[in-house]
């Protein structure tokens, strides 16, 4: 965990309320692993009080840059979207436990902005397939060649939810299945998978976070055995079976 001043190389709008930002932060880019996140301070003043967590969308070790994809949802993300080339932001990270990258075949299932971290993961994987869903074509933040798409309004790919793409793949052919998106979407995907593959299914969660580095207990996530896990330090990537989905859905803001 290091805290550095990163210089903004580019900010561009890539969809409705969706932005892509490129930061120069060589040390952090070198250390980051797929699924890890950064806590970003977009404004040097005291407010907003807390940093905001962002998953790393891609990291260029040689060039020393990091890329983030995010949707503007409030003051923190709004401030970040208004930065321009040459501005500087403080970046704490990399934080959390990411995806356990391995050589076998992976399936990536993303819903909406949940796919934001997948470009980085895909770049470090061997063979893999990708299923992506969103409300409409414009909200698909990432559309790599070969990915199967589903949109609720039918403006791209199959009309429907991402779960409707699951019957076009063989779930037993993967070493790992990685799922990231809204809680209800992740839960539906996990439930739609045959019981035999659930053990190899991983999800990446979001939570409100205060610190992001494991000390405050603010990002508690209900665990399947009772009690809580810390989204920031025990996750954000979890085995789907580690989590109590009923209690997670109940607490989702």
């Amino acid at each position, binding site marked *: *965990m290091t*805290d550095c001043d990163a210089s903004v190389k580019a900010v561009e709008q890539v969809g409705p309320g969706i932005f892509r930002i490129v930061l120069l932060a060589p040390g952090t880019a070198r250390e980051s692993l797929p699924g890890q996140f950064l806590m970003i*301070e977009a404004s040097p003043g*005291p*407010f*907003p*009080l*807390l*940093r905001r967590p962002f998953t790393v969308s891609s990291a260029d070790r040689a060039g020393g840059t990091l890329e983030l994809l995010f949707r503007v949802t409030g*003051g923190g993300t709004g401030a970040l979207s208004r930065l321009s080339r040459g501005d500087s932001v*403080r970046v*704490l990270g990399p934080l959390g436990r990411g995806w356990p990258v391995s050589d076998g075949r992976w399936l990536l299932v993303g819903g909406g902005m949940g796919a934001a971290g997948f470009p980085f993961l895909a770049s470090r994987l061997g063979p893999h397939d990708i299923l992506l869903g969103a409300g409409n074509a414009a909200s698909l933040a990432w559309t790599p060649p070969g990915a199967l798409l589903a949109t609720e309004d039918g403006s791209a790919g199959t009309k429907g939810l991402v779960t409707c793409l699951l019957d076009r793949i063989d779930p037993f052919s993967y070493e790992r299945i990685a799922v990231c998106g809204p809680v209800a979407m992740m839960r539906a995907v996990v439930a739609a998978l045959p019981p035999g593959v659930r053990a190899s299914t991983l999800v990446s969660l979001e*939570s*409100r*976070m*205060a*610190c992001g*580095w*494991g*000390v*405050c*207990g*603010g*990002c*508690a*996530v*209900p665990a399947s055995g*009772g*009690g*809580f896990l810390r989204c920031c*330090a025990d996750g954000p990537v979890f085995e789907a079976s580690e989590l109590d989905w009923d*209690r997670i859905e*109940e*607490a989702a*803001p």
Partner: protein
Amino acid sequence: MKPELLPVIGPARFRSPILLASGTCGYGLEILEAGALEGAGGLVTKATTLEPREGNRPPRIAETEYGLLNSIGLANPGVEAVIEKVLPRLEGFPCPVIVNVAGDTAGEFAEVVSRLESSGVHCGYELNVSCPNVENGGMAFGVLPRLVEEITRLARSRTARLLSVKLTPNGGDILEAAAAAEAGGADAVTVCNTFLGMKIDWRTGTAALSRGTGGYSSPALLPLVVARVWQVSRRVGIPVIASGGAWTAEAVLELMSAGARAVQVGTRVLRDPFAPARIHAKLLELVSE
């Protein structure tokens, strides 16, 4: 004012007047690993209770326009796990460690202190008689001077180490509570815990925190804490440790001007684990002017 930069409080000596506040640095392991303890005079751990506590249901935190609400609920592994698994890892910690202690009864506070005496790692205790986030917990104690005195006296009978009582700004008379802590034998009082707060979405009527209310922290609380530190330090003869609103070195010095012997930094550390070094460096610069 010439502030004391190596404060002594009761039997404990600190490396700087800047302490890390309970709940914002865990048990110190993460911040130790990050190498972020430079500038920190001491560290106050998470609240430790007799039995393990899961903590409250999420959502446990909510940011407001000018502050942070939290309702963690004293989540901790319980005193036995702290003694066996946590404190041994803090052997040789770069700054003094104070264990924050909470309980449901005076006897529980004393029992936790008693058991912790088996470890030589920490220099003292902060009795949390003021947590706003548990049902039958701390805050009821904190507003009743008679109970504050009883809890302090009982804990005092179990330890010769530093004993500070963390007071509540929520209800009751903080001056009476401070006097009661002094009468019970406390070495210091911590002024004060978070302020009871709540955030509601007016469109839906739902509270942002699962328990409704929580503890509010913010740099905007500084004048409220300066006033309480100023009043309490004129009422009691024991040192006052300020807690609340300290975001900058200037704020630390202002709280010391109000009478604080040391100042806890909390929410700022959540945002910036390296803040203690930054604040300390600036503080040294300011006092040498």
